[in-house]
């Protein structure tokens, strides 16, 4: 089975090709919907968000252009940023979470297990080389959409240093990925 060429579809969508848009939707909507469900934790919100995400995809397709970038990474970045806007709008980011329970514990563990068994890729290796807290923060931000305030709260890092702290981790991750 030939996988759908998402880059080609996006190039066609940039030319207002509706059939290509439909094909892209068929090929990617279940994945993007799952990402939205995971982040928004509400089916109704996720449905509305998916609608907006595809409108953005239609509008932004020309800016994806002829780049050799990964179409899926681009689609997921649009999806995640849209969801995160909605999350932040629900809950002002300046106010750290008051809950003391670990908000992403249950979401995270299956991920880690699955990552370690199924992927075994460079990312897993490199996340493994980071401080456990750095790796945890990267996953928390990406998978659960945690903000800096939430990461600071959960990992007990002062709010005014959490950004510098995480950037240090990201820099190490980058060095490791480039080496790999």
């Amino acid at each position, binding site marked *: 089975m030939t996988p759908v060429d998402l880059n080609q579809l996006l190039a066609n969508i940039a030319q207002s090709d509706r059939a290509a848009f439909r094909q892209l939707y068929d090929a990617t909507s279940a994945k993007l919907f799952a990402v939205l469900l995971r982040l928004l934790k509400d089916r109704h919100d996720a449905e509305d*968000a998916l609608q907006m995400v595809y409108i953005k995809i239609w509008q932004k397709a020309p800016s994806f252009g002829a780049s050799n970038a990964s179409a899926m990474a681009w689609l997921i970045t649009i999806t*995640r940023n849209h*969801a995160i806007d909605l999350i932040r709008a629900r809950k002002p980011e300046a106010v750290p979470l008051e809950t003391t329970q670990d908000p992403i514990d249950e979401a995270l563990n299956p991920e880690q297990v699955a990552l370690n068994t199924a*992927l075994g890729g460079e990312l897993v290796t490199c996340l493994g080389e980071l401080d456990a807290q750095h790796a945890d923060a*990267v996953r928390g931000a990406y998978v659960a959409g945690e903000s*800096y305030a939430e990461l600071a709260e959960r990992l007990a890092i002062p709010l005014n240093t959490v950004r510098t702290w995480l950037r240090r981790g990201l820099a190490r991750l980058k060095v490791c990925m480039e080496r790999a």
Partner: protein
Amino acid sequence: MAETPMPSLNDNDDDALAAEFVLGLLPRDERVAFEKRLHDDQTLRRSVSVWGETLLPLSSTIEPVSPPTDLYTRIESTLFAVSRASQTENLFSRLWVWRTLSAAGVAASLFLGILLFQTTAVRAPDELIRTALLAQLENEAAALRVAAFVDSQSETLVLTRQSGEAEAGRAFELWLIAGDNAPISLGVLASGPRVEVPLSDDVQRLLADGTALAISDEPLGGSPTGQPTGDILAVGSVTQLNL
């Protein structure tokens, strides 16, 4: 115990910003500024793309979930479809005021494309929220179909012609109709499939939710009178989207 020397993320912070953008960690105002730069900065786009791919495996364990079957129809009707709802009458009467044409002719030739979509998304309290205006200009009879899009951060209206060509020796002219006012010409459209129309401050102020855009058939160089003289080939109402 000595720490490993801290690697720097490029010489500036752009790569760190790209990583934060992909992770969704940028505060909104920074993200808006970042996205604005992304438009013109290829290096920045490259950084975003590298980080997007680097972190993509984190989403690979999220099992796909099929969205409701009618969702595509909803998206399609938001972006493309034409509605026969009550606004049609309203827009029609506004056009009627300034358009000197037989009632039969108008009734036969106009097919109004109106976007009714209202996002139910939660609105952020801050004014930095990004919006866009979208209109679908259509006319079933003449088979001219044009999508119009303007982003709150840009001063350009982008028109994408999806079907229809100007007749030989004729031109398409774009009009803005705000309320019951006479149409304002936004100029003659260049012939390519994608046309960017720069917007003056005055026009930007007028271009809002509910404003109509229309395209008329005119002599090369545009209407000699400053008002539409030929057939209205496509018309649509502007809808605001919160992106």
